[in-house]
Structures are given as C-alpha cells and as structure tokens.
C-alpha cells in the first residue's frame, strides 16, 4: 500500500461499493448475490512467492434467493453497515461488542461465534482486516522509539506525537493503527515478545544504543502490531528483528510476523517477509551457557505441528526445529540475567543482542 494511505478511507469506500452492488442488484429486480473467498482448510495454501498462507480460488456463493443463505447475507451486510458507521463516527468496537450490538435488531446471531464468522466473511470479501473498519481486539502491544506520528482520529488531528514521549511506550491501539508515520531517525525495528523485557530495554536505552524502534508484541503479535511492523518496514524501510524466548512458541511468534497466520490467510498485507528471528535460538543454547529447561509434552506436540508446516521446511527453520528436537531443551530470555555484570548492565543488552545483530548483518 502506498505510504500513509488512510486505511479508514480505503475501507469506507470498499464498504460503500459493496452496498452499492447489493443495492443495484435489488433495484434491478434481482436477488443479490455475493461470492466470498472460501476460508475452509481445503482452500488455504502456502504461497512460496508471497511467503505466506493465502486463500485459493474457491469461492462461497451466497444468494439471497436461497433460504439458507439469506440470513448470513443479511448478517454480513449488517456488519458492513456497522463498520461504515464506526468509521463515520470515529468509533471503535470489538467482536464481543458487535455481538451485543446485534441484539438491538432482529439479526439473530445465535452465538458470538456466529457474529465473528460474519466479520471474518466481510474481511475475506473485502480482503482487509477488520481493524480497517474499526473492529479491534483489546489492545495488545506497545511501541517506543524515535518515531513521529500524526493521528487521524477526530480531536487528535494535526497533533504530532513522538513515540519517546512516554517512558512506558505507547499502546498500539486503533489510533496508531491508522496514523500517519511522519518521520524517524531509527534504522531498524526490534520486536520483543515480553513486556517486562521491553520496559527493561527502554530503561537501558536500547533504542539509542542500537538506533531502533522497540515493539512489545506481548506474546503473539496482534494484527495491529503486525500491520505497524510491516508499515515501518515497507513505508520507512526499516529492517525488523524479532526477539523471543527460546522455545517453539517464540519461533512461531516470529514466523507469524514474517509470514502471517493461517487464520488470517484471507487477508494479505499484514506480514513482513524480510523480518528475521534474532533469537533466542536453540542453536544459541550451547554457545551461551545459560540455565535451560526440559521441553514438556505441550512443547513437543507443538514442535510436531510446526514440523508439518511447509514454512518450516526452509533451511534456517529446519535447522532450528531439528535443534529443539535434538536438545529437547528450552530457555527464557530472562535466563541471560544469570550472566549479568550488574543490575544496570544486563548480559542481554550488553552482549547477546549486539552479537546477534552483528551475526545477522544489522550492525
């Protein structure tokens, strides 16, 4: 997407076009019909060129003359309507909130799962994340670093904010999701899985030491966080490095940032293919002798699942998964504190991070 595209405007237009299409069909005396890309497993493929999972060609046709389709179709349009209103009024909502809103009219979602599905259908139909039409998950993730942004939200327009203003970082919320990225002096992005380490890194001035923008993903990165990471990479040209615990879960957090999630296969443009897993790799375990733990049953199960994922067949990932399997060990980033010189000088920041950045050619 072009730099600083106002995604809200983009979404609003798409919603209007959808409405117009339905409207025209009905005016012309036809039962309206939509064709939604199928999100069924048999239509999800890994695209090696795009380096992410995408939907195939299968489409689900919903025709309003079919008594089985007309209700989900009406439900889909209702979500679209809510989306447009949210954009128009500068409001945000959540999946759960949407479900409650539906009680106001007779649209009959039996469960929240049903209303969630209607939202996913709209995402697939318009090929855009629901964040674009102001339906957000609860905030997850924070950002800190020398990045100046301008919010598009009413009442905050034209105010420039620098993301070093708040020592705890800034929530990656709906406003930031659609903000203009004005300028930065940073030359890289470091995404970190754990909030505690994120704060530590701010205090240790990692952003200055390594000229980075820091992102706290708080576990699996939210779509807003992934979108922001991609924008930093695409629009500002910043390479991305991901720092997680040494376990299969951390590996996958990186993978999702790099190549998207299967669940979001119906939405492209949320991943950063050039992002790199900085560490903590299982092949680092023997280099840095820090306390480790044995992998548990859940870890082994997850390992088996990842091994079946085509994305992990690539040389680097295969090596790492093999290492997990060989060693049967995992470790937390906090384990590096066993080698701290002092409280104010952590091994993580003083030694591990710069060595890994060098290894990946970042510095």
């Amino acid at each position, binding site marked *: *997407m*072009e730099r600083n*595209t106002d995604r809200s405007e*983009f979404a609003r*237009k*798409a*919603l*209007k*076009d*959808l*409405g*117009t*299409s*339905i*409207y*025209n*069909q*009905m*005016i012309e*005396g*036809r*039962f*309206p*019909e*939509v*064709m939604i890309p199928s999100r069924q497993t048999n239509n999800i493929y890994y695209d090696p060129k*795009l380096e992410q999972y*995408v939907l195939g*060609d299968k*489409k689900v*046709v919903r*025709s*309003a*003359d079919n*008594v089985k389709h*007309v*209700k989900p*179709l*009406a439900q889909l*349009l*209702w979500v*679209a*309507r809510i989306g*447009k209103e949210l954009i128009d009024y500068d409001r945000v909502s959540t999946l759960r909130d949407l479900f409650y809103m539906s009680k106001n*009219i*007779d*649209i009959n979602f039996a469960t929240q799962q049903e209303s969630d599905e209607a939202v996913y259908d709209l995402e697939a*139909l*318009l*090929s855009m994340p629901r964040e674009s039409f102001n339906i957000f998950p609860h905030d997850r993730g924070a950002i800190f670093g020398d990045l100046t942004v301008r919010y598009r939200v009413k009442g905050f327009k034209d105010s420039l904010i620098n993301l070093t203003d708040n020592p705890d970082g800034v929530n990656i919320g709906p406003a930031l999701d659609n903000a203009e990225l004005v300028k930065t002096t940073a030359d890289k992005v470091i995404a970190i899985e754990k909030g505690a380490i994120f704060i530590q890194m701010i205090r240790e001035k990692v952003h200055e030491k390594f000229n980075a923008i820091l992102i706290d993903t708080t576990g699996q990165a939210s779509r807003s966080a992934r979108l922001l990471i991609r924008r930093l990479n695409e629009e500002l040209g910043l390479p991305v490095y991901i720092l997680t615990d040494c376990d299969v879960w951390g590996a996958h957090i990186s993978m999702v940032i790099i190549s998207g999630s299967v669940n979001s296969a119906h939405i*492209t*443009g949320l991943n950063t293919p050039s992002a790199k897993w900085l560490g903590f790799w299982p092949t680092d375990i023997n280099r840095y002798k820090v306390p480790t733990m044995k992998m548990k049953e859940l870890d082994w199960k997850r390992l088996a699942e990842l091994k079946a994922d085509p994305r992990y067949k690539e040389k680097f990932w295969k090596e790492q998964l093999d290492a997990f399997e060989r060693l049967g060990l995992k470790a937390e980033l906090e384990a590096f504190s066993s080698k701290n010189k002092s409280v104010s000088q952590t091994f993580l920041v003083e030694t591990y991070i710069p060595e890994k950045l060098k290894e990946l050619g970042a510095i």
Partner: protein
Amino acid sequence: MLSEQFQELNVADFFYKNKDLVGFDSPHKATYMIVRELVENSLDACDGHRILPNVRVTLSKVEGEGNQERYHIKIVDNGIGVPLEAVPYAFGKVLFGSKYSMRQNRGTFGLGGKMSMLYGQITANSRVTITTSQGGSKIYTFELSTDIRTNTPIIYRREEADNKSHFRGVKIEFDFEGDYGKARDKIIEYFYETAMILPYAQLTFIDPNGTLLFYPRITEKMPNPPVETQPHPHGVDLELLKRMMAANPHTSLQVFLSKNFQRVGERTAKAFLKSNGFDPHMEVSQLSTKQLTKLVTALREYPDFLPPDPSCLSPIGEDLLKEGIKRLLSPEHVVVTTRPARAYEGNPFIVEVGIAYGGAVMPPDKPGKVQLYRFANKIPLLYDEYSDVSMAVIQNINWNQYKVKLDEAPIAFITHICSTKVPYKTAGKEYVAARPEVEREIDLAIKQAARELRVQLSRMERAEYRERRTEVLKKYLSMMASFSTFLAEKTKEPDVDLLLREGSTKKRRRGVLQMVDDPPDDKEGEEKDKA
C-alpha cells in the same frame, strides 16, 4: 350304574345356563352388552329399511334386592316397528333366523335383543314392556316374559290405543342387574364410535347420573341397505344342504343347485356335477349320506363358481366414512379406501379403511400404542384390540416408506369389515380372527390409504416449506434493502415485496463485488483479483 338323564335343551335354556359364553359374564359387561344389543337392534330396524335412525336410550338406577345394583333401561327408536302378530314371538321366544339366505346383519347371533331381555328376566325377575307401531292408526303395548323351560312367550298385558302422535318404531323397557360405574366408559365409547361410523344416525343416551350424551346426525345420506341373497356354494355345509333338499325332495340335482344357490346357473351346475361324477338328473332325495358328504366337499372346493354377489353387503361408503371420521376426530388429513368385494368360504366381505392424521389427533401417549377404531357390520368392537387382525396388520407394516413413525405420529386408524359372516375369533369375543383372505384385504387397504396419506403429507410439507421460505426471505431481504441503502448512501430503499413477487432467480455467474477502482499500488491485491 346310574343312567344319565338327557333333557332337551332349548335355546332359551341354553342362554340361561351359558350367559358368559355370549358376553354376559359380569354385571358390568352385561350392562354394556344390553345397551349394545338394543341399540343394534334398533339401528337394524331403521337403516335396514332406509329410515334415518333416531335412537334414544335412557338408563336409570332402581331399587334392587340386597347388594344388587339394579337398572331400568328404556330404548325408543323410529324404525319400521313390529307387526302386531309378531310381537310375542319377536320378543318372547328365542329364535335363530331360519331362512336359507345371506344378508349382512348387525349382532353376533341375530337374536335381536332377546338375550338382554332374558338377562333382565333372570337377574331381576323383570318383565319386558314393548310399545310399537308400524306408523298406522294403532299403537300396541305388551308386557311379557319368556318361559325358559319351554321357550314360549308369556303375555301379561296387551293394550291397543290410537296412534295419535303417529309413532312408528319400537319402545322397549325392562330392569336388570348391572354395574354402570364399571361399564360407563365402554358405553360412552360405544356411542362415540357408533356416531363415527353412522354419521346419519341421531343417538341420545341419558345415563343414571342424568348426564346427556347426544350425537345429532350430520348427513342424510345413507348407504343402500343389504339385499338378501341366496347362499353361495362355497359356504355350504351338510346340515344346510339337507334342509334345503328336504324342502324340495323331488328336484333334480341340476335344477336344485341352480335354483337354490347364487352364482350357479343350469350350465354351471351341469358342468360342476359332471366333473365331480354326479348325474345331473338324479333326484336329490335319492342321494345317500356318503354322496351328500361328497357333494358338500365338491361344492366348497369347486373353483369355477363366480365369487359371491356382494349386494348382500352394505358398506358405509367412502363419503360417509370420511364425514364420520372428520366429525369425531377432527384430523387435518383423512384418507379412506374401499377394497373390492372378496369372499372366504363362500361368505362375501368388503373391507373399508380410514386413516386420520394430524389436527386433533394426538400422537400415542405410550410407545407401542396404536389408535385403532374397529368396526364390523357397522358396529364398534371395543374389546381385545391387540388380538384383532387389524391391529396385527398395522403393526406389521413397514411405516418408514409411508413417512410415518408409528410411535410418534398423530395417526388414527379406522377399519370396517362387513360380511354376511364376520370371522370373529370366538363367540362373544370382540375381535376378528386372522383369516388370510380378510387379513390380506385389510393389509392392502391400509397400504393404499397410507400411500395417499404420504402424498398429502408431502404436499403439506411443501406448502409449509414455501410459506416459511417466503417469511424468512422477506425478513432478511428487508434488512438487506435497508443496510445496502445506507451503505450506498442512497435515499430510496429497494422494493422487497416487488422483488419477492417478480425477482429473477437466475444466478449470475460472475463475481458480484466489483471494486470501482483498484486499490492504489496494491500489487498483491491485483494478483489475487486476477486469480
């Protein structure tokens, strides 16, 4: 060695000693049987003569002896009445019908209410009061009883009066030992079912509690009364043959057969006799016992007689059956079928069947229960349901192919067998035996009705489905009209009613959502759109 003394036992005596054999085995059963017998007698006097029946029964409690519960019964009908000379013998003597002919009758023994009157005499020492007229200028009242030892009537009183009210019919009154409490449910059920099978009858019953049960007639259509016909050779027996021959001893075999049996003409008789080694010109009185026996067997087994003439039968007919069922069961669907006349052992019979479904008909309250109304010769059968051939037939049918789950469906069955000789299992019992010819016809009739029901149910399902569909479509299309108008930023909503009436359902093959402009520089999006 004591020699046993043999006494001639007349019919009255026989009944006196064996009441339970013919259904009078307990006071409450007797109460039911008495009401039944008298009502049937009255109905025969009416619809056997094309008279729309009006039957009124009043049952009241009277002072009894000791612990006995004693009742007084009065029944009035508007039937043909009884000729004056016949009254004592019609009511004071227990007779069997002695004509050599066939006709569909109500009642198991054709005794015309006499067992009831005898029962009253025996248990309450009651005389019977009969008032009757055939519609002429005079009306007669008799008070009489039967001398059981000699089977002759005893007349206590006989009066003649002017028939000022132009009464035609019979009124009978007598007392008997009974038990209405236990019999009540069955008596009420009896009237209910009689009303079902005879929608042209008006029935009134006033019980000892003063409760009135009244069924008006809902139609004036009546089936044709049965016509008396000659017996059919397949139904002959030695005794019958002997009696018939005694009446005409000098006729030749050929003439005898052709004149006394239905479906036997001179040519058929000749062919039959020749093929069985009889001389057609031989006089009937010349036949030896051995020859007679051979003749009986040959008559019963000869395959080339035409099947019996069914004009001696009087089925209800599909219209009346439907009306009766509709009135009392209020179903949503009724199907009736009539099978063609068939015969067993020379007795013609016709099976008529009805199936009532839905509406006020409820599903069975217990699994395995089947709602079945059984009739034979226009009278309801109320006992021994699960031993009856109709029940067995219904339970043996595979109902899946008729879209019916017998345990859950709101379905009721009505079966009517009319015959010159209904194959009851035993005398005095109220269920029909599983004679193969009869069973087959019931099976075919029910299946035929079930097939028609299935068609009706499918039609109903489809109609319901269409209605539901329109409702659902309308509701959600209206919403879609509203939402799309808002999204498209238009002011006038599309007309949903018009769309439902005239909308085209041809599917568009191409994708519907067309972005007006491609998103800027969304190269990945372009790749996908082209895919």
